[in-house]
């Protein structure tokens, strides 16, 4: 569905232009902060700002109301510039209750705007948040910020009570839209996109829809009329590459990439998954794509999911399973089976904080070594990692292209930050996408050998059940090369182990080489992979602008590594590897290239800030 945007005529008085604003909406997990943030994001994207978001919510669906663990936040960065991250530090904090204030205030920049819902600062909520007295009365605490104390709940009730016929509880639930309306006025956003969204969303419950749209308008009008804000702000359209855009999250882009791969390969998509945070949205997206012939299978467990995907691949579909770290651990043995049977398989791992259950809703990159080595035996797979939410689309296609061309499992490492984070996405030219129509083996020349190899890729033929004369048996027991017969021969085993390794190595001929951001030699090279792209690139750009000899390389293909990667490392005095783990890529680089790579680890469930990377680069630079 497309929508047109009608810009409101907001009076021009007291308007200040800003390049970039970072807002964090924070409230109770029942307060609808994710929705509020998403709406603000959508509107900002549609009016042409560059955007980047960081939803940050608790693992509990509804932790006790008003408690610290129940605080849900949504940070978004919107700009007239080209931005790559959700912003290091919020300039604006909207705190819907004391707990939200307590959890988030330390992050707010000095002199930043603080908007609080004073109605929620009652004795009970203050106690739950661990405040002994009301922080809003504490001049010392708040002197560093521009504080706007607004009775949001009361104002919302007053606006809605006469207008809609729904229970008070329902009215109170609209207060996030009231706050959103206020923010729309403050940052000069049109209400139309959200009003359209409300209309569609509440088609079946028009009274609730009316309540929400009334709340939105009331918040907007309050900000305009009450004159508590002396200024409001405007962030112009961003100057970004021309084209048609939409907002996209990593999980949405991953699902789209899977559908696109299916069309490009000319093979039906079979997505088998067991619900797990933060990967489940991929299942939801794909389950709605039945009209693309997409078969989704919600399996009884992680192992069944990967096994069903393998079975589907054997039968001729593009088999793919999606999970997060704990699920990848459970799938390990089956991935080994796919390595042994040399079937195409894509395993999506949307990484989250670990180990064990860890931090289900937070981001981390600590599954790289699991993806590389987390199976019994010598069991190599190809590994790719998208760099941005939009890149998830392209790397998902790449995963299938590699899997089918090389008859091998490919692990695709996304993470919670990419999965839920959003950015404007320039719609790809479908004709320019890689064409990798898959041709299955259909004819035998007398006798069929299931492990007869393509000399370029060492891939074996993909012969499907249903094809006459190609009946064959595969399995997890070691096979004789070419014939595929069960073999315990020692020489054959060594040969097959080396062949499976070589198959992965040969993929390097089939992937783009690394691009260097900056000079091709110099003082410091920053190497990253996956979701750290935005913050690393921004940090490197910042120090480059100061004249420092710093370049970066961002890996989207991790196994095999792009061909010239090793050579590049030799052209820099220092190699810095920031990762959201304890140095897993750095470990691989040291082992493979014998380089003194300096690891910069962060394992806090949060992405890198640009500032902390800049500081580290400066430190390494001076050493």
């Amino acid at each position, binding site marked *: 569905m497309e929508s047109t945007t009608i810009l409101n005529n907001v009076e021009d008085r007291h308007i200040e232009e800003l390049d970039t604003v970072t807002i964090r909406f924070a409230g109770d997990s029942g307060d609808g902060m994710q929705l509020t943030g998403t709406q603000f994001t959508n509107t900002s994207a549609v009016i042409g700002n560059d955007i980047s978001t960081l939803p940050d919510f608790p693992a509990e669906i509804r932790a006790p109301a008003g408690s610290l663990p129940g605080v849900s936040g949504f940070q978004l960065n919107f700009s007239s510039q080209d931005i790559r991250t959700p912003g290091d530090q919020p300039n604006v904090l909207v705190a819907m209750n004391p707990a939200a204030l307590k959890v988030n205030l330390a992050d707010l920049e000095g002199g930043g705007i603080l908007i609080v819902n004073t109605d929620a600062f009652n004795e009970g909520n203050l106690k739950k948040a661990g405040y002994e007295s009301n922080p809003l009365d504490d001049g010392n605490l708040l002197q560093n910020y521009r504080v706007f104390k607004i009775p949001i709940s009361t104002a919302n009730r007053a606006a809605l009570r006469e207008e809609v016929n729904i229970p008070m509880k329902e009215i109170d639930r609209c207060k996030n839209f009231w706050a959103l309306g206020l923010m729309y006025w403050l940052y000069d956003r049109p209400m139309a996109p959200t009003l359209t969204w409300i209309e569609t969303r509440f088609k079946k419950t028009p009274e609730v829809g009316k309540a929400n749209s009334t709340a939105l308008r009331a918040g907007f009008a309050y900000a305009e009329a009450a004159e508590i804000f002396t200024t409001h702000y405007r962030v112009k359209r961003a100057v970004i590459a021309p084209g048609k855009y939409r907002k996209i999250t990593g999980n949405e882009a991953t699902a*789209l990439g899977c559908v696109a791969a299916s069309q490009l390969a000319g093979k039906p998509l079979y997505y*088998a998954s067991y619900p797990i945070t933060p990967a489940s949205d991929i299942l939801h997206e794909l389950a709605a794509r*039945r009209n693309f012939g997409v078969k989704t299978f919600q399996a009884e467990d992680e192992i069944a999911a990967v096994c069903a995907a393998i079975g589907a691949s054997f039968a001729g*579909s593009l088999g793919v399973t999606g999970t997060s770290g704990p699920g990848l651990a459970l799938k390990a043995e089956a991935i080994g089976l796919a390595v042994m049977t040399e079937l195409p398989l894509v395993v999506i791992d949307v990484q989250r904080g670990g180990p064990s259950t860890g931090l289900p809703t937070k981001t981390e990159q600590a599954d790289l070594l699991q993806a590389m080595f987390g199976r019994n035996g010598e069991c190599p797979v190809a590994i790719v990692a998208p760099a941005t939410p939009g890149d998830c689309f392209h790397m998902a296609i790449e995963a299938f292209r590699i899997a089918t061309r090389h008859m091998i499992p490919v692990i695709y490492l996304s993470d919670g930050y990419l999965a839920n984070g959003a950015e404007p996405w320039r*719609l790809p030219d479908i004709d320019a996408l890689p064409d990798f129509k898959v041709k299955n083996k259909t004819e035998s020349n007398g006798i069929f050998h299931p492990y007869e190899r393509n000399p370029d890729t060492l891939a074996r033929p993909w012969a499907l059940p249903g094809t006459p004369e190609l009946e064959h048996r595969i*399995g997890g027991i070691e096979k004789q090369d070419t014939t595929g017969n*069960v073999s315990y021969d020692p020489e054959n085993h060594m040969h097959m182990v080396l062949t499976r390794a070589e198959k992965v190595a040969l993929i390097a001929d089939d992937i783009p080489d690394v691009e260097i951001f900056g000079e091709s030699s110099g003082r410091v090279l920053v190497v990253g992979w996956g979701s750290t792209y935005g913050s690393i690139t921004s940090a490197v750009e910042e120090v480059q602008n100061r004249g420092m000899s710093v370049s970066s390389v961002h890996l989207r293909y991790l196994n095999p590594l792009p061909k010239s990667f090793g050579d590049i490392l030799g052209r820099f005095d220092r190699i810095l590897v920031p990762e959201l783990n304890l140095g897993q890529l750095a470990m691989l680089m040291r082992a493979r290239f014998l380089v003194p790579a300096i690891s910069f680890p962060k394992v806090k469930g949060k992405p890198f800030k640009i500032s902390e990377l800049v500081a580290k680069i400066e430190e390494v630079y001076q050493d």
Partner: protein
Amino acid sequence: MSTHVAENGGNGSEVVKLTKKDFVSDQEVRWCPGCGDYAILAQVQKVMPELGLKRENIVFVSGIGCSSRFPYYMNTYGFHSIHGRAPAIATGIKTANPELSVWVITGDGDALSIGGNHLIHAIRRNLDINIILFNNRIYGLTKGQYSPTSEFGKKTKSTPFGVIDYPLNPLSVALAAEATFVARSVDTHVAHLQMVVERAMRHKGVSFVEVYQNCNIFNDGAFDMFTDRAVKDDKMIQIEHGKPLVYGKEHNRGIRLHDMHLEAVELGNGISESDLIVHNEKSPDSYLAYMFARMEYPDYPVPIGVFRDVEKRTYESLLEEQIQGAVAKMGAGSLEKLINSGDTWVID
């Protein structure tokens, strides 16, 4: 929508006539001499031509264990997978291509221990697949540990003081998971086994067949006390749809329902066949089948035959129907449209 493979040989329309030989692969069979698996393999190879299936449309899937080597010996498509996961792999194969005739070969350890979860879920989904469980009540490939169907108290390598967990009854598990076809046979009862395998194949929906199979190395004679030629007529009972439960060499014994319990009785002395319970494999609820499945040696004659055979929509046909419905309603998916969906804007 899938068509019934048995009727048309799979993808093609002509009915093919093959022989047992066509289903024998070129692989050397590596079971211990005297293993019950040989007999089951022979019967399956013999039944295949009767079903009119084309070899290329048949897939045998297995897990790990002695029985799981089965696919290597069938000249069809085959997938020898990992321990316990055959039902999940088969689910992927069948749903990806409903035209295929998919068979799961498994054992008591593979299906009921490590793969228990997959088994019950594959059954409840009612995929049109055929699951044959070779029950030898022991772990053979790992050389003699007790299995989930080993008798209480049994001494094995891993239970020198006797098994202290209670065994599972495979048919009870299948019935509890709402299997639409449930049967049991014995490796040495060749004709009966053939009949059961053929009926399993012809059933549209999930078929679960337990086969008592002798492991002559680690659990030799496990079923002899009721399957042996000398005693089987008195110690086993063949249940048949629509017929009273009669057994015994002289057809002089039967099973009746008494006080909500099954009771083995002698005919005569006022008890006639009309007092016996009559088998109804089509009964929409599975109580009767469940009661029969609970008849165990030595309190009852051990029942073999088809316990349950009812119709229910299959998972894969429902899935195909959803796809066709979605295409009819939304039109065949267009990538261009999908990419352009949602709120979009243009930067000049």
